[in-house]
């Protein structure tokens, strides 16, 4: 339980940030942390609760980002409508992809590789066409105003993203207390056992993937609205996929606040490293790596695990 209390405290503290922090740099920093926390939550739905480790969540992040950028720039759609359509389309892509993947029983390493491959294909394709911005990427014209979902005051945007992260935690909370979540976790723990109890493997996993894809696409949409720029390397590159799984694994897979813990810790450490080393290129990445290794070695349940929600069960006997 104490992990939940810590999570609530952290979430509350992050709500105060825009009212305390005056520096534009630090506000942007925490804004990005929140976005990655929600991206991690998207990964958590599929990886943490359903046990399907995706290495290609950039595909869904990019789908949202490029979807909204293309719809706004090329087709003149309103920012809200463009965002909603982009999220829906990405969820649909996730659904089709998920159906193919799960119908043919790809799991574990194969699932990871297939998702990575699709993200890479998308990265190359997006960079190859004029319509999708080619090698330059896409710029959404600056037009501040609530009607365009662009805010000259970054604090407003920060609060919206904060609400999104809080919503993400509510989604995880719902998973933990609903039939759908119970079925996902059952499939994660034991596919045969779950199917024998009437759990529809393909349908349940596809729905989880669609939910996860829609959440990741939402981060993509918000990213574009914040930076007004996106290119295929940022959106579909492996770095984004790794970000999504790293914050969750370090924070605690299959926990409500894991992705938030992970995002805060990783980026705080990364930023600290940058400040200390005076921006020595790549050093923060070395730190990322070290942290991941330490987390995997010592924290099988992530940061949420040390805060002690569920101690690792000990077997009474050596079973056959």
């Amino acid at each position, binding site marked *: 339980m104490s992990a939940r209390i810590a999570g609530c405290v952290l979430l509350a503290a992050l709500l105060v940030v825009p009212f305390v922090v005056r520096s534009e740099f630090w506000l942007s920093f925490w804004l990005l942390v929140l976005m990655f926390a929600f991206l991690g939550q998207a990964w958590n739905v599929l990886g943490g609760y359903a046990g399907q480790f995706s290495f290609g969540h950039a595909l869904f992040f990019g789908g949202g980002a490029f979807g909204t950028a293309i719809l706004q720039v090329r087709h003149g759609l309103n920012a809200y409508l463009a965002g909603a359509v982009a999220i829906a389309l990405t969820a649909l892509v996730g659904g089709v992809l998920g159906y193919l993947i799960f119908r043919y029983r790809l799991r574990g390493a194969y699932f990871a590789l297939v998702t990575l491959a699709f993200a890479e294909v998308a990265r190359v394709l997006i960079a190859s066409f004029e319509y999708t911005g080619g090698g330059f990427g896409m710029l959404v014209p600056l037009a501040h105003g609530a009607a365009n979902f662009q805010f000259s005051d970054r604090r407003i945007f920060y609060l919206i993203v904060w609400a999104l992260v809080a919503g993400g935690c509510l989604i995880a909370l719902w998973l933990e207390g609903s039939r759908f979540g*119970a079925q996902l976790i059952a499939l994660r723990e034991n596919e045969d056992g779950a199917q*024998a109890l*009437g*759990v529809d493997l393909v349908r349940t996993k596809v729905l989880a993937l669609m939910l996860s894809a829609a959440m990741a696409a939402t981060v993509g949409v918000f990213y574009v609205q914040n930076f007004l720029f996106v290119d295929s390397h940022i959106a579909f590159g492996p770095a984004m996929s790794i970000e999504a799984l790293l914050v969750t694994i370090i924070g605690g897979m299959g926990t409500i606040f894991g992705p938030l813990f992970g995002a805060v810790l990783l980026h705080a450490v990364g930023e600290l490293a940058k400040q200390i080393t005076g921006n020595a290129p790549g050093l923060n990445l070395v730190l990322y790596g070290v942290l991941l290794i330490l987390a995997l070695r010592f924290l099988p349940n992530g940061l949420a695990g040390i805060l002690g929600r569920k101690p690792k*069960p*000990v077997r*009474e006997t050596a079973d*056959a």
Partner: protein
Amino acid sequence: MLEVRNLAKRFGGLAAVDGASLDVAEGEIVALIGPNGAGKTTLFAAISGFVRPDAGSVRFDGAEITGLAPHLICARGLTRTFQIVQPFETLTVRENIAVGAHLHRPARREALAHAEAVARRVGLGHRLDQPAAGLTVAARKRLELAKALATDPKLILLDEVMAGLNPTEVDEVVSIVRSIRDSGVTILLTEHVMQAVVSLAERVYVLANGKVIAQGSTASVTSDPKVIEAYLGHGAAERLRSRKEASHAS
């Protein structure tokens, strides 16, 4: 209630199930026995949808269910347990059983309440909040039973729920199985523990090399020469009979 006709399943060159037929009527406890490798588990898997049979048909409650996905078969009221138990390790006993209870109970609270009631029925009432990973073999077998029972089945296939239990534990599970049947659930079970087969089953099918070689009451089946040979080898029935006659003569 269950009609299996000429079911066949090959794995490569091996005919695991080779034209097996059996019937189970509503309210019965029927046992399926046979030596190791006879095809009992494969037959169960083919009936419950986990493997697709190559030939033959399975009818349940008057409807064809051959080759349907396991979750659809389960939703119709036919569910199975596994010889190698399949618990959801990190979940508690209550949460494990609730997965089954959710089949017909969308609300979490209702599913958890039903899980608790089912746990009591199989004698796991005092372990509700224990994680499945920490259970003993005997408790894991009961959990396997409880999960299946929570789906409100009409017919349960029990795949060696008593294997690995000591005689006292076997007796306890026997009475649980009987109480499940008395509550209106039909049971088809495979078992190596003859103590359990004799005290539970009203009818027995004997499977050897994927074929049903005998059926009837426990007594008639165990004295059938074909059955003795399936277990003890070719010519065993002959030798047993001559030894028996010799001992009578002396």
